[in-house]
């Protein structure tokens, strides 16, 4: 494994981490503030990808697609919150799991009905599809760098909002002690709708950015959802900081691990075992990491709740 290859995988890991962060940040707030298990968060990611590919198909501009997708996702998110999620706040987790499971089924079929069964194509515009030399003789796709850049921007923006605005303060308070916030006379309903809408927007942006990189098809949300769960478990429910740290760690661990592990295994065992065990072990890495962290810190690295 050369240094260059390692750097490339490392950057890929960062880029994957950006997607994870965008999805997990919204979800961890929903879990922490609203105390609702929302399995359908992956569906929001999927919808973002589908909308993006349609808008891009219509306008041929990724920028315009982004500008259009954001409000659409906000509306979709708020609709879901108003129609389905509201009925679930008072219910126990089992009900929430089943109801949001129903949402997954619904959305997975909905996209097939509207857009058809085939994967949606989304090719990159010329100005984004080239490579750039980050180091001499080391070309790296421009697009992935852009994704990382967007991720940093969003993270910074989110931190600013959380720490400097009133809304952000309410979110932090709600994540750490929800009943108190209600007792303070804040309009909880409005807060919840906004938080959910925000989460939907972020997930949608992730979907949009992921669309050129992976197939846009029914069910693409759930694989990401699992990773988001791992991120949130490790980072701590309700914690944006935890989501950021965990996303980057998981992103890098997963990407670099997958490429390094088979190579490492060849050093230890014979090639045939490495062939079978390598990919198998690589797919388990992230979960083993989660189990280990949980062993020492059952509430995650930065749990937001004090009680």
């Amino acid at each position: 494994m050369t240094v260059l290859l390692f750097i490339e995988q490392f950057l890929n890991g960062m880029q994957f981490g950006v997607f994870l962060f965008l999805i997990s940040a919204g979800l961890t707030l929903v879990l922490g503030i609203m105390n609702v298990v929302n399995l359908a968060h992956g569906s929001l990611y999927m919808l973002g990808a589908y909308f993006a590919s349609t808008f891009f198909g219509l306008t041929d501009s990724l920028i315009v697609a982004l500008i259009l997708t954001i409000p659409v996702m906000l509306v979709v998110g708020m609709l879901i919150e108003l129609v389905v999620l509201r009925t679930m706040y008072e219910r126990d987790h089992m009900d929430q799991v089943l109801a949001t499971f129903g949402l997954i089924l619904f959305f997975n079929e909905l996209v097939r009905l509207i857009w058809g069964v085939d994967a949606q194509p989304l090719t990159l515009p010329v100005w984004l599809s080239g490579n750039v030399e980050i180091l001499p003789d080391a070309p790296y796709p421009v697009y992935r760098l852009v994704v990382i850049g967007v991720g940093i921007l969003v993270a910074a923006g989110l931190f600013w909002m959380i720490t400097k605005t009133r809304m952000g303060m309410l979110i932090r308070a709600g994540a750490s002690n929800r009943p108190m916030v209600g007792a303070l006379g804040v309009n909880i309903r409005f807060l919840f709708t906004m938080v959910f809408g925000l989460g939907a927007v972020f997930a949608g942006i992730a979907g949009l950015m992921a669309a050129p990189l992976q197939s846009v098809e029914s069910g693409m949300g759930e694989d990401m959802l699992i990773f988001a769960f791992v991120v949130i478990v490790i980072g701590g429910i309700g914690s944006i900081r935890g989501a950021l740290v965990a996303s980057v760690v998981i992103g890098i661990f997963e990407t670099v691990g997958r490429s390094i592990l088979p190579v490492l295994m060849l050093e230890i065992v014979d090639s045939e075992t490495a062939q079978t065990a390598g990919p198998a072990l690589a797919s388990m890495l992230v979960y083993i990491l989660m189990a280990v962290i949980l062993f020492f810190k059952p509430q995650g690295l930065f749990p937001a709740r004090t009680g």
Partner: protein
Amino acid sequence: MLSRLKIWILMVSFLLLAALPFFAEAIDEPFYVDLMARVMIFSIAAMSLDFILGYGAMISFGHALYLGLGAYAVGVLAFYEVTNGWTQLIVCVLGTAFISMVLGLISLRTNGIYFIMITFALAQMFYFLGISLEAFGGDDGLPIDSRSEFFEAFDLNETWNMYYLILGTLTVTAVVLWKAINSRFGMVVRGSHSNDDRMKAIGFPTLKYRLVAFMIAGVVCGLAGFLLGNLTEFLTPEYMHWFRSGELMIMVMVGGMGTLFGPLFGAFAYIMLEDLLSNFTEYWQFYFGPLLILLVLFAKRGLWGMLPGKEDMSDE
């Protein structure tokens, strides 16, 4: 204590199931034997989930994992030409016990949302593991060439033998789990559901008991998987997919959470419904999704829960 009506329903159902193969032969529709065999297998799995979910509030979103493990015990051993049923069974029981113990130790110290996410993630880990094991077919799956061999006189390739083995397993596990849930052990599990802190305060180290309950559920579900592998003669990681876990939960809810016998009927209802809807349209999940939401909102107590019963002793 079960009410008269419920006992009556259970007895009649048992008799109907026992008589089914005869009816099917009489009308020359062997398909029904296969169908009910499948329903019974999922009944066992759903019942095992209710044991921890309905009674113990351990919302495990990865229970289908044990279905898969049971099937893999059969399939992998058969692949290596070990077709002795007893060997496979021992591996199945020990394997599911061990894995459920490890996973339980990792996840049971958490609760609520964490527990749901962790069980979800860990089960998917095994799914991805299954896919990456090319030797056993990866995501194409692996045909199982022969069913488990127990006694020479009892050839599982005979449909009827397979069917009655499943029925027998269902009956035995139902009785065992019913006894367990009403035993001292069961009271601890149910108490921990209701109020874990209180249980600790009166002197129960609840983690131990919840772990054992978790293991029992895993092993019983593994038995269902053992039967599933034999019935379908096919091995695929899809048995462990989170979607299957979701289906098990639906069966439990539709049947009635925390009733043990409800999920038996829940499995029946769900599989029938799925069959019916998918004949109507390829996009049946589009309708089923909202239907599920409605069920959660309005029919939470499930089929069994809606029957009049004397399960709670009120003022007499």
